[in-house]
Structure formats: structure tokens, C-alpha cells
């Protein structure tokens, strides 16, 4: 009986560590709720009269790319950073390039991105360590031809 509690505790801890990595990982929600310009994941955008524009109607001012991330711990139960709202970032990119809109927006994420896999490996074993989700947002800034 002397070893009952330590053994029981050890079993609980062992079960915890073995079972919970099954749902380990990292996640985030990306929004853009305060945009000043239209941002589309396709080639299509509308002009001020709601006429559908295509590639021939605008010129590209260049591509952009930036990263977003979210950190959390205890298998994402405790968020350490906020979910990213990319509105301000997109607004500043479009304004800086003098564009009217963004087209062909793409989002990329991967388990090996920025070494996230190793961070998440350790956080899955020891949930006190933070885990992270990375993603890359890219697109084309365009200006409508007059």
C-alpha cells in the first residue's frame, strides 16, 4: 500500500503523455474584417459600378508575401497570442504600392514551416511548452487601368 499513490500518479501521468499527443498541434483563425480595399482569392474584382473586372482590366503593381502565426499551450487550450486579423497589414501593403485591390490571395501552411514541427513535438510531450501554427499569405496588388 505504501507505493499505491506514487504508482497511481505515475500511471495517470504516463496515460496523459501517451494519449494526448494524438490531438497535439496548433491552429489559428485568420480574418480580415477591417479592409479598406477589396481583397479577392481569385482574379475577379468589381469596379465601382459592380462590373466584374478581369486580368485585362487592371495592371499588377507587384507581389507581396508575409507570415502569420499563433502561439498556444496545453494542446491549444490556452492561447498565448491572438488570432491574426490581417486587415491592417493588407491595407498598408495596398496603400504603400498605390493599388486599388488585391487579387489571387493564397494561404500556405506546413508542418515543417519555420521549424514548427520541432516546437510542436516538444509541446505535445510537455504541454507546458508553447506550440505554434505558422502560415504564409501572398497575393498580387493591382491597379485598375483608366
Amino acid at each position: 500500500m505504501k507505493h499505491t499513490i506514487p504508482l497511481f500518479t505515475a500511471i495517470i501521468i504516463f496515460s496523459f503523455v501517451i494519449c494526448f499527443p494524438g490531438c497535439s498541434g496548433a491552429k489559428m483563425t485568420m480574418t480580415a474584417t477591417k479592409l479598406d480595399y477589396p481583397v479577392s482569392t481569385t482574379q475577379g474584382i468589381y469596379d465601382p459600378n459592380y462590373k466584374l473586372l478581369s486580368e485585362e482590366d487592371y495592371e499588377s503593381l507587384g507581389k507581396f508575401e508575409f507570415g502569420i502565426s499563433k502561439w498556444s499551450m496545453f494542446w491549444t487550450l490556452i492561447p498565448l497570442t491572438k488570432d491574426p486579423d490581417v486587415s491592417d497589414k493588407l491595407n498598408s501593403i495596398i496603400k504603400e504600392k498605390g493599388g486599388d485591390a488585391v487579387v489571387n490571395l493564397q494561404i500556405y501552411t506546413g508542418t515543417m514551416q519555420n521549424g514548427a514541427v520541432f516546437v510542436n513535438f516538444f509541446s505535445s510531450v510537455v504541454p507546458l511548452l508553447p506550440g505554434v501554427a505558422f502560415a504564409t499569405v501572398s497575393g498580387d496588388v493591382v491597379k485598375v487601368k483608366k
Partner: protein
Amino acid sequence: MKINNLTLQILLFTSFVFILTSCSVTFKTANIKQPLLLSSRVGMNGIELPSDTKSKGEVSGEVVFERTLRGSSYGSEIEQATNADVNFLPCVGTDANRCVTNLYFRIANYQYWMFSGNKSLIEFYGDCKTIPQSSK
């Protein structure tokens, strides 16, 4: 800190498994003509959809790629990336007046039980809208 051979072997093995089963996904919509927009800002000069615009329902879906040591995997980066189109076609069809607004994304990377594999996932959600003829 002294690291014994067994610890080193476990670390090397799990690193190898993670690299072997690494995966990634890209959300892109290549063949849709209509706008799929991240907000309700649909046109140039700060134009938003009129407040009386009727919603035509919601659109959602996911691009996903999974690889495990057991060999069960589904999806491929290229196929899944372009497959996002099919989620939007029922919503926008071929009508130039139809679009999707307020798109947002849930992005996740998961490690499987006993580190036997990985999964990358991008879920997306948006509102189907039709531009009112009175707006034109």
C-alpha cells in the same frame, strides 16, 4: 545534462518520422471568375455591398493533406489546392453578379498519436451573395 543513447535514438527517430511525414497545403482558387472576398468590401473606392443584399447561403470547405507512417494518406498538395474551386462553384456558378464575402480561414497543423504522422489543414467559411440589380 547527460543524454544517453536511448534518448538520442528516440529523438533521432521522432525527428526522422516528422520529416518523413511532413506535409503542407495551399489554399488557392485558380479557375473561379467571380470575386471571393475576405470582407464585405466588394468594389473599388471603398464600396461595400448594400445592407439589403440578400444572402444566398454559406459556403465552406477545406484543403487538407495527411501523411502517416501506416501509409494511409489522402490528398496531395496540388490536387487539394485546386480542389478549393469546387467548393465555390455551387455558390457562384457562372453568374457575374454572384460573389463570396467575409471569407475567413482556420489553419491547423496536427501531429498524430505516438508521433506517427502529420496533417495540415485549411478550413474556409464565407457568405454567398448576389449583387442587387438596383446597385448597378
